[in-house]
Structure formats: structure tokens, C-alpha cells
């Protein structure tokens, strides 16, 4: 089996300030990896470097492309990266406003990726959009409404539908439940869990919520000050943390 994503010696500096340094990992097809750590630990920097939103200063991000096998996405042309971004990759932003077009209807938001890869049959696009709205539990009657008329949870579910409609193989998620009420978080988590399992998705999920990490991620990477301090099987990292920082993180969680 070929790894889906291989990250080698990835570093990113903002001037003299460290974003993330010397990150290595291999993600296999079907694996969900969580990245946890406090704000400013470099989680989002890492995610954005992986997803091609910003170039790392050093390192390689090798993705197993559908047509040409493993390719380093860092040295790809922008055109190739964008093609990946709208076919094989998906990116779910913490704030749905960053990932949605707020002045385009829900159906148009879901249909955009289809049209971007060449779909030109209105009826088919609409049917697929409707199917996906259903899968993320949005009533088809809301299809022509704009997302600004939606609740936060619905917006986030819409963003997920918009991302998954082209059948990506790798999903990047930046704290997908971060901005939501607890009751809404549970619904979204359950939805994500179901989608990940049914579609056999691989995912890299940045989160600050250890319970969410336990529910969604097969394995976990703990970051502090731009570096990975611990990684392993999710329940092993959470139940038997080895590094001082992870122990602090785990012991700091309040149990309701």
C-alpha cells in the first residue's frame, strides 16, 4: 500500500518567528489523524502548509495523486495544486464564512466544485447538490437560500457538503466544531464520523478538543511551540501520555 500523504522535515518560519519545525509523518489511506495543541502551537500553520495554502520554507509534502502517483505538492505548479484542491482534497475551515460563498445559494455552494471540474448540466448538478444537502441533514427546501440565513451549525454542515461533493480522498479540517454550541457540536461530530467511515476518507483534523480527537481520530499528534512533542494511537496518547506537555493537556480537561 502507498501512503496517501508523506510529510518530511516540514518547517515554516514567519520571519524569525517559528510557525512549525521539522514535522514528519506518514498518513495511510483511510486514516484520520488529529493534531492537538494550544493556540499558537503551529497546528494551523502546519495544516495550511499541508493543504498548499502557504509554501513551507523547507520540507516535502508528498501526496499520492490519482493519475501520477506520489508527487511533492510543494514544488507542483499552482495550477496542479488548485486542481488537487478542488478534486482530491477538501478543506473545512473553522469559520464557515471562510469556506462558503455567503452570497451564493446553498445549492450553488455545493455545485461550485462540480462546475469547477466541468459539470455543465444544471439538472444533474442540482440533483447532486440535493443529495449532498440531504447527507448533511439540510432540508432540500433550503437549497436556494443563501447561507447567511442559516444557523452556524447548518453553515458548517453546508461547508462540509460543498467540500465532499467531488469525492475527495483527503480532507483537511481546521477545528471544524470550534465555533459551535456544544449541542450542535455533537451533531456535527456524529455526522463527520459517519461520513469518514462510509466514504473511507482520510483526514487531518486540527482541534483543541481532546474528546473530539478521541471520537474522530485514529491517531494523534501533539504540538507545542511549533514542534511535534508526541504522537501515536489516539487513545494511547490520551490515556498514557508520555510527554510533560501532553500530560498537562490531558490533565487540564474538565470532565462534565
Amino acid at each position, binding site marked *: 500500500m502507498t501512503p496517501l500523504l508523506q510529510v518530511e522535515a516540514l518547517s515554516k518560519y514567519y520571519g524569525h518567528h517559528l510557525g512549525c519545525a521539522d514535522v514528519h509523518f506518514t498518513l495511510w489511506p483511510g486514516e484520520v489523524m488529529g493534531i492537538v495543541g494550544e493556540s499558537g502551537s503551529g497546528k494551523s500553520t502546519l495544516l495550511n502548509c499541508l493543504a498548499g495554502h502557504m509554501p513551507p520554507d523547507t520540507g516535502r509534502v508528498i501526496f499520492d495523486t490519482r493519475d501520477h502517483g506520489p508527487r511533492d505538492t510543494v514544488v507542483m505548479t499552482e495550477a496542479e495544486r488548485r486542481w488537487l484542491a478542488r478534486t482530491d482534497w477538501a478543506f473545512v475551515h473553522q469559520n464557515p464564512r471562510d469556506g462558503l460563498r455567503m452570497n451564493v445559494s446553498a*445549492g*450553488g455552494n455545493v*455545485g461550485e466544485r*462540480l*462546475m*469547477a471540474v466541468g459539470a455543465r448540466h444544471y439538472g444533474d448538478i442540482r440533483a447532486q447538490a440535493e443529495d449532498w444537502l440531504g447527507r448533511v441533514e439540510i432540508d432540500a427546501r433550503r437549497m*436556494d437560500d443563501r447561507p447567511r440565513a442559516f444557523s452556524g451549525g447548518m453553515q458548517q454542515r453546508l461547508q462540509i457538503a460543498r467540500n465532499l461533493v467531488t469525492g475527495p480522498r483527503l480532507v483537511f479540517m481546521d477545528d471544524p466544531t470550534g465555533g459551535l454550541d456544544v449541542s450542535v457540536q455533537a451533531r456535527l461530530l456524529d455526522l463527520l464520523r459517519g461520513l469518514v467511515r462510509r466514504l473511507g476518507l482520510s483526514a487531518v483534523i486540527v482541534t483543541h478538543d481532546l474528546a473530539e480527537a478521541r471520537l474522530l481520530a485514529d491517531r494523534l499528534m501533539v504540538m507545542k511551540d511549533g514542534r511535534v512533542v508526541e504522537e501515536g494511537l489516539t487513545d494511547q496518547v490520551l490515556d498514557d501520555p508520555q510527554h510533560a506537555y501532553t500530560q498537562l493537556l490531558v490533565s487540564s480537561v474538565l470532565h462534565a
Partner: protein
Amino acid sequence: MTAYNFAYLDEATKRMLRRAILKAVAIPGYQVPFSSREMPMPYGWGTGGVQLTAACLVPEDTLKVIDQGADDTTNAVSIRKFFARVAQVATTEATGAASIIQTRHRIPEAPLQEGQILVFQVPIPEPLRFLEPRETETRTMHALEDYGLMQVRLYEDIARHGEIARAYAYPVRVEGRYIMDPSPIPKFDNPKLDNCPALQLFGAGRECRIYALPPYTRVESLDFEDYPFTPSKAAGQCCALCGAMDSYLDEVITDDAGGRMFVCSDTDYCATRVAVQAEDAA
């Protein structure tokens, strides 16, 4: 008029413009930035078109200027007089007799010929502008043929209105590559862009962009397979003056009691038909 160089602009400026035009012709549909000059008329009055016309004019040319199809509106008259003074070129209202036609918002009804140049005045050259406000991003989207968003706009029209509601400045794809704003011509005129024997130049003065369609360029209006493009006009009407069924019509309000009539927007086309009918009748 010796106080001005031929056709108002100095030769260095015209050379800069011609370089931009050549580049635009070489890459059909691609927006070439150029260093737009102040012209003796306000922005929005066709400064882009005027600069293109000035760069193309030679003393032997015959110039026609139309605004919304008409030769006799203020804007058309002003620009025609301007070039008559600063270039001393011949002017005409007959489409067939013109070597350069500067236009705002229309393509003449009479078919254009090889050797003719049609110059369009363009307010906003970027077809993606209202979908994506960042110029850096729209340029990248053109470079990478990242055009899903354009189609989304048409999708939204159908979802909201049951059809593609855009009636003018209807986006086109040039030679299967660049998406282009054909300037605010009615979509009725879009088919005339395709495979046209004349050279078509587009100038946006305020936005500093030139683009072009060389003769016989393939120009397709964007659409969906199940919602194909239709070049529509006022349904079921004919021109009240010449009786034309096939031309683009303006609705003219004739009094305060709701009286109205439809007439050809292309005044030369209409007048020619009326003259022929009068001759036939005589």
C-alpha cells in the same frame, strides 16, 4: 489643426497602445494591462475606446461611431466630431462604408467585413469581478482556467429566475480558453462575436485593460446543457419604422399616457431599410 498630433495622442503613446493591441490579438480574450491616458472626456464616456481608435486610425480611414446602435446620440456625435477635428478622417453613418467603427453597447446589424475594425467601449473588463473582488485572485483564476465560479453565477440565475437572466454583458469563452466580458452589449449580439470577419478590439480606459478578438475567432456564450444560451430580444415585436423582425429593438416611450413603440436600435440599419422601402414604393 496643427496644435495636435494626428489622432490626438502622441506617437509614443500610440506605439504603447499598438503593442498592447498586438499582444491582445495574439492572446484572444486575455486582458492586457496598458497605461491609460487622460482623454478630453470623462471616464465612462468611452476613453478606452477612444484610445484604441486613436491608435488604429490612419488618414485613409473612414470612421463610424455609435452609442446604443445610434449614430445621432450625444456621445457618438462628440467622439465622431473629435476625430474629425484631430485626425481629419472621413466619417460615415453607413456600417458598410466604415473602416473603423467605435461602439458602445451594440454590434451593428449589418454583417461586418474583413478589414473592418470594431472598437468596443468597456466599463468593467473583468467578468469575474462581482464574484471575486480581488484583482490578484481573478488574474490567477484566468491564468489557471479556474472558472467554476463563473458557472456558479449562471447557476444562481437559473435557481432564482428559472433561466439565465443576464440580458447584457453575457460572458463568453474565447477559443475554449479565456472567459471574457463582451462589454454591455445585449446577449442578442453575442452570436455576432463568433467567427466574425472583422477585428474586434475592447478598451477599458478607467480599468486600463485592452483585449481583442482577432477575425474568425471562436466565441461561445456560457450556458448549461439543459439551459442552452438563447440570444433573446423584445418578444414578438417588429420595428415600428422599418418593420424589421430580425433586429434588436429599443422601446421608446412616446407620451405620458403609456404610449410606446419599438424601433431598431441600429439607426443606420433602420434608415437603410426605410430608404429601400421608399424606393420600392416609388
